[in-house]
């Protein structure tokens, strides 16, 4: 049973489409990783889910939280749901806390909003929450101001705020990107444990594939505002079908093979274009070495072919390779689905070498 269900989510900013037709499900207690480069529309998707878009950016489609449609819902009801049923952890712990208020007050605030706790009760609950996120001496930390905490400590505070009302789903928008590598691991371990204890679902937005492989049951790849591939973490990370997912994997695996980088680090040629400047059809086609003539049209999401594909040199043009009918619409199940006319079918290690240029020429 999906607690969060996104269907055909399209986000536009004054005529420019930023996210188009995104659909995915997050089941109760499930952990879904949303991966992609900066500028792929991951954060926007999360903000739209929360109903937090502003400044002329509008969303259409459907976002259902426990069966309740969120898009178009009035602000008053949204305020009741936000923080209570659905919570969000932000990327920048340095700026996501109010500099003029004490930590304890900010952690207790959610409980005061949604549970009607008194100031005193909220303060006591805040200390407990701070202890749960493993801040040493929570009584003292509750009285400090945000600038007196380090980045990792602040991100722990953000997590305490997120879990305070036992939400059914937590959206974590690159929760460790702004942190030192030494702190990242511990913050992730904490998030892992908290999500376990709460039994809530997690939508983890990241571009760190190592994180995804450890934390997530299912992975969704986004590029250019489209979902280009989705499937179980195992399938996605071991046998990616979309050239983009494969390229992402390759770039992140480059160092970890033997701990020493062998020569130049692989990268994906080119860069993510500015919103609105993506090519027509498949947004990745101008950076993709698998690109074929058919790519001028956006391929539909179909279940990934199980049989080996023809070689890159002899692409099949026209129909996508459908080897098995999609189960439902494929967005909620762990069916490995991909939107590509010419998907990767070789072992990633083999084809990757030739597919990704060594130095982003």
């Amino acid at each position: 049973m999906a607690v969060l269900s996104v269907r055909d989510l399209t986000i536009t900013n004054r005529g420019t489409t930023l996210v188009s037709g995104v659909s995915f499900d997050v089941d109760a207690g499930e952990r879904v990783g949303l991966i992609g480069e900066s500028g792929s529309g991951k954060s926007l998707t999360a903000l739209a889910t929360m109903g937090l878009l502003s400044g002329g950016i509008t969303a259409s489609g459907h976002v259902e939280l426990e069966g309740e449609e969120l898009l178009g819902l009035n602000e008053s009801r949204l305020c009741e749901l936000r923080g209570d049923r659905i919570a969000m952890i932000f990327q920048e712990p340095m700026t996501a806390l109010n500099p003029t208020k004490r930590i304890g007050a900010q952690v207790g605030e959610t409980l005061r909003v949604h549970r009607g706790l008194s100031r005193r009760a909220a303060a006591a609950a805040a200390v407990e929450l701070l202890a749960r996120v493993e801040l040493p001496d929570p009584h003292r930390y509750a009285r400090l101001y945000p600038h007196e905490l380090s980045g990792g400590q602040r991100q722990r505070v953000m997590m305490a705020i997120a879990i305070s009302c036992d939400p059914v789903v937590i959206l974590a928008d690159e929760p460790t990107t702004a942190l030192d590598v030494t702190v990242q691991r511990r913050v992730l371990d904490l998030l892992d444990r908290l999500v376990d204890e709460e039994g809530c679902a997690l939508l983890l937005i990241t571009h760190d594939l190592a994180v995804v492989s450890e934390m997530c049951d299912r992975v969704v790849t986004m590029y250019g505002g489209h979902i280009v591939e989705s499937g179980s973490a195992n399938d996605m990370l071991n046998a990616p079908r979309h050239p983009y997912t494969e390229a992402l994997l390759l770039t992140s695996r480059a160092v970890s093979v033997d701990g020493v980088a062998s020569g130049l680090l692989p990268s994906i040629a080119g860069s993510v274009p500015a919103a609105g400047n993506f090519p027509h059809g498949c947004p990745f086609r101008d950076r993709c070495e698998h690109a074929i003539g058919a790519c001028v049209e956006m391929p539909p999401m179909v279940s990934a072919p199980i049989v080996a594909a023809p070689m890159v040199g002899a692409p099949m043009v026209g129909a996508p390779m459908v080897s098995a009918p999609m189960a439902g619409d494929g967005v909620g199940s762990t069916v490995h689905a991909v939107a590509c006319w010419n998907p990767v079918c070789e072992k990633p290690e083999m084809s990757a070498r030739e597919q990704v240029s060594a130095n982003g020429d």
Partner: protein
Amino acid sequence: MSQSPAEDTHRSGSGSQLGKAPAGEAGVPGVSGTRGVSGVAEASGVRDAAEFADGVGLVVESDGSEGRAEVRRSRWRLWLRNPSLVIGGTIVAIVVVVALLSLVWTPYAPNAVNPAIRLAGPSASHLLGTDEYGRDVLSRLMASAQVTLYVGVISVLIAVGVGVPAGLLAAQRSGFVSQLVLRIADIVYGFPALLAAIVLAAAIGASKTTVTLAVGIAYIPVFVRVTRSNALVVLSSEYVLAARAYGRRPLAILRRHVVPNIATTMIAQMSLLFSLAVLAEAALDYLGLGTTAPTASWGTMLQDGQNYLGNDVLLTIWPSLAVFICVLGFSLLGEGISETRDARSRR
């Protein structure tokens, strides 16, 4: 919004972020496996990042253990090091004390007439001399401070009371409401304050209230604009987004997040406008649009004194000096407050 794809792209440059190694590996190239540095930290059973860093001799950011007494001490030092703040604060304090003192004691009754000693120069019994009716100038100067503070405080309160909520409204609502508020502010701003005061004086008669209303209304647009621009900065911050994400309603966000964060700026602005209000009040009184005889105010004293410029130039100098010092005091105070605020935010 910082989450827009365009900006994200801009920040990360080319696809270089993808080349970044996963968390664990980047720190120590020699360590294989995915745990890296943090793995070491965990293995040694160290729970806190700061502790771990201490253990390996790293300097870490303060975790706040220095306590707030330190912070408070350094804030005092910051204030005392700022000459504008110290001098302005002292002058303002003196003006306030004099005004309060004049309520209970002045050397002579401010309105006590004594024709025998009219236009007498400074003497031991009348330190600043007497005016054309033989009234003690020092007593009248002291009593005038009441009028000045009254008009200043009430007019600034009017300006803040209307301007700040309107500015917050204009900041939070985009589009029509915001434009409406700003255009109304523009109209008020464009209407000459002096003309408004004359119209008001004609309508309800010249009095302290007239001056207060005229000055207060004239400064509303200033507060609308200052509030709006400062509130917009706070509203676009990530902690407001976070507050919305945990279900704070718009009004509560204004009250709990925006107002505390713009308060210092507002107080500095109030002090600056107070000095202008003092000046405006003196000018309007001088023109006969405000406080009327025989009540003492620096403006009316100036008006009275100018008829006797040939006889006793000091009669005009004393009230002018009082206005000058008072305006200087409030401007310096306002400037000092904004300077210390900036200094604090720079750290």
